[in-house]
């Protein structure tokens, strides 16, 4: 059926679906697609419309403290498809180690291993349209160029694949809203409502159940939804905001009995020009610098610490990218001449490149979102984000870079210069991934997590959370593929709940 415009729903209306999905981004749309043709009557409530609208987007405005971060109304998009409307399509499954509890990394670990998600990766890969699920196995097949030779050690050639919207002549990444509009309209057990802002989760008197959702439009309509079950899928920042702002019954907010909602926010740090890579034997293969095609995949090579190296050296994840061709200064030329001669290799055709990285941050409870006294146009408190990054985050990455340098020397294939030394230098080059993670983290213990292993909010029988806000540890991989797989797993769980 056609989408419903909430602005046409009379105030005072009460709706009673089996399942309310709050948010129409990658997670919300995936959930609706996965529960299509089941007996579960779904209502998906999307704050925005089909395209960008400045007034709706302004609902995201907030303030920031700490390390400079992207403004909160810029780092996300509030219309159908959510952040997939501006994502770059970078895709990669989390590594096994990302799920493990590591004594040396406080607050680390998921309540289940990666094997639990693996059955869902093929469908997730299909939904994001990233081609065959190859990733690091690309190293073992034919490629349009040579892999960078590395000596034995802790860094290896790793691979991203890219989402490409099939049938889109510009080969943009799959924007879930536009791409799946027709599929969503064909789902008989789904009503999808646009311009519908959920402004509160109202708890039942026994505080074990969410009784109803308050919904409002910017045009002034207000109505309620009384679903049997609810999945909040508003994105990694807004999920926490909705829980915190729903504080009529419990002052701390829904699901926040242990003061965890909003804490442990994370994004991937993407500092530019972190190192200079010199390749002795000529130009590096093009697929390190930009995406190329092989075996049906649109892919790009990166350099990553192995799981063994991460365990033994107590490192977080990093995906090192080759960025621009650069010219060496005089000391750099002297270093290349001296080193190549000492190693007995010809560097007369050496090329130099700057290296970027996508860097996993260690979980930090003080990196968090909290409510402010300022309210948006719908009366919801705006957010304050306190952003942090520690010197240890940079120090861990330096260990990986030094290992990469060592392996280049061992292979006599190149050498490396570390280009960021001080905290000020790191921060001056800092960009962020727009990946919003961790604010409703998953843990079996309610004292350590907001949701359990099934994404159900601890202590609430009918409230679930979908999306990367439940990631308790983040890895370096971009979240979309992983959150889609996790949402498919949640869909399977919900089928059991409704059975």
């Amino acid at each position, binding site marked *: 059926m056609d989408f419903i415009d909430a602005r046409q729903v009379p105030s005072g209306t009460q709706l009673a679906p089996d399942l309310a999905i709050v948010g129409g981004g990658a997670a919300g749309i995936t959930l609706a697609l996965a529960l299509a043709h089941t007996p579960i009557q779904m209502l998906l409530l999307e704050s925005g419309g089909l395209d960008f609208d400045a007034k709706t987007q302004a609902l995201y405005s907030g303030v920031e403290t700490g390390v400079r971060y992207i403004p909160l109304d810029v780092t996300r998009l509030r219309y159908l498809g959510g952040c997939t409307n501006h994502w770059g399509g970078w895709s990669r499954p989390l590594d096994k180690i990302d799920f493990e509890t590591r004594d040396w990394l406080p607050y680390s670990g998921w309540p289940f291993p990666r094997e639990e998600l693996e059955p869902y990766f093929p469908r997730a890969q299909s939904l994001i349209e990233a081609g065959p699920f190859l990733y690091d196995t690309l190293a073992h097949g034919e490629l349009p160029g040579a892999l960078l030779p590395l*000596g034995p050690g802790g860094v290896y050639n790793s691979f991203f694949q890219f989402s490409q919207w099939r049938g889109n002549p510009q080969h943009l990444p799959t924007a879930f809203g536009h791409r799946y509009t027709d599929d969503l309209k064909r789902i008989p057990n789904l009503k999808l409502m646009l311009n519908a802002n959920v402004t509160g989760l109202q708890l039942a008197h026994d505080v074990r159940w969410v009784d109803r959702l308050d919904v409002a439009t910017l045009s002034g309509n207000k109505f309620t939804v009384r679903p049997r079950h609810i999945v909040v899928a508003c994105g990694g920042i807004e999920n926490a905001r909705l829980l915190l702002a729903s504080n009529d019954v419990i002052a701390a907010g829904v699901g926040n009995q242990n003061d965890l909602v909003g804490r442990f926010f994370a994004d991937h740090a993407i500092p530019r020009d972190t190192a200079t890579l010199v390749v002795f034997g000529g130009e590096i293969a093009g697929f390190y610098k930009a995406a190329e095609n092989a075996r049906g995949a649109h892919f790009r090579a990166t350099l990553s610490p192995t799981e063994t190296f991460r365990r033994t050296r107590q490192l977080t994840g990093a995906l090192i990218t080759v960025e621009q061709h650069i010219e060496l200064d*005089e*000391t*750099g*030329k*002297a*270093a290349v*001449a*001296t*080193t190549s*001669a*000492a*190693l*007995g290799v010809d560097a007369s055709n050496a090329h130099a490149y700057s290296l970027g990285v996508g860097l996993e941050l260690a979980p930090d409870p003080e990196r968090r979102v909290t409510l402010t006294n300022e309210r948006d146009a719908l009366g919801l408190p705006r957010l304050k984000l306190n952003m942090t990054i520690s010197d240890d985050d940079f120090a861990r990455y330096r260990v990986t*870079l*030094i*290992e990469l*340098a*060592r392996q280049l*020397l*061992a292979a006599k294939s190149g*050498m*490396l*210069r*570390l*280009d960021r*030394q001080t905290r000020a230098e790191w921060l001056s080059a800092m960009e962020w991934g727009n990946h919003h993670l961790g604010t409703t983290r998953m843990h079996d213990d309610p004292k350590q997590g907001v949701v359990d292993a099934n994404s159900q909010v601890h202590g609430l029988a009918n409230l679930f959370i979908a999306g990367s806000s439940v990631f308790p540890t983040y890895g370096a991989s971009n979240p979309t593929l992983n959150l889609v797989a996790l949402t498919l797993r949640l869909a399977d769980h919900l089928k059991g709940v409704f059975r």
Partner: protein
Amino acid sequence: MSVSRRTVVAGAVGLAAAAGALAYEGWRLFGRHYPPTPYDDLLTLLSDRAAARQLGAAFISEHPNFNAATAARALRQHIGKQPLQSALAAEIARSQVTEAGHWVLPQTLVGLCALAAKA
């Protein structure tokens, strides 16, 4: 006219000797010269001493307490009679790397460069 084999060989040797003398004289007149140092046995391991000096200067600016005599003793002991390449390969395998001008390099190579800068 026939030329004997002996004449050809003698001529070739003569030409080679002349070329060698010319090259030596050219190097003596125009080549890079460094005053003798207590570390010449080590510095001969570097094929481009000017480049090594530049890199070594970067290291010394980061490590102003670098002591050339101490470093030279350690380098002689470490390298011993093995070829430099072998010494470097073994060092790289043992993760014995350090930074000079923020380049990550084998410690021995950096030590040699620093000596070149001090010499």
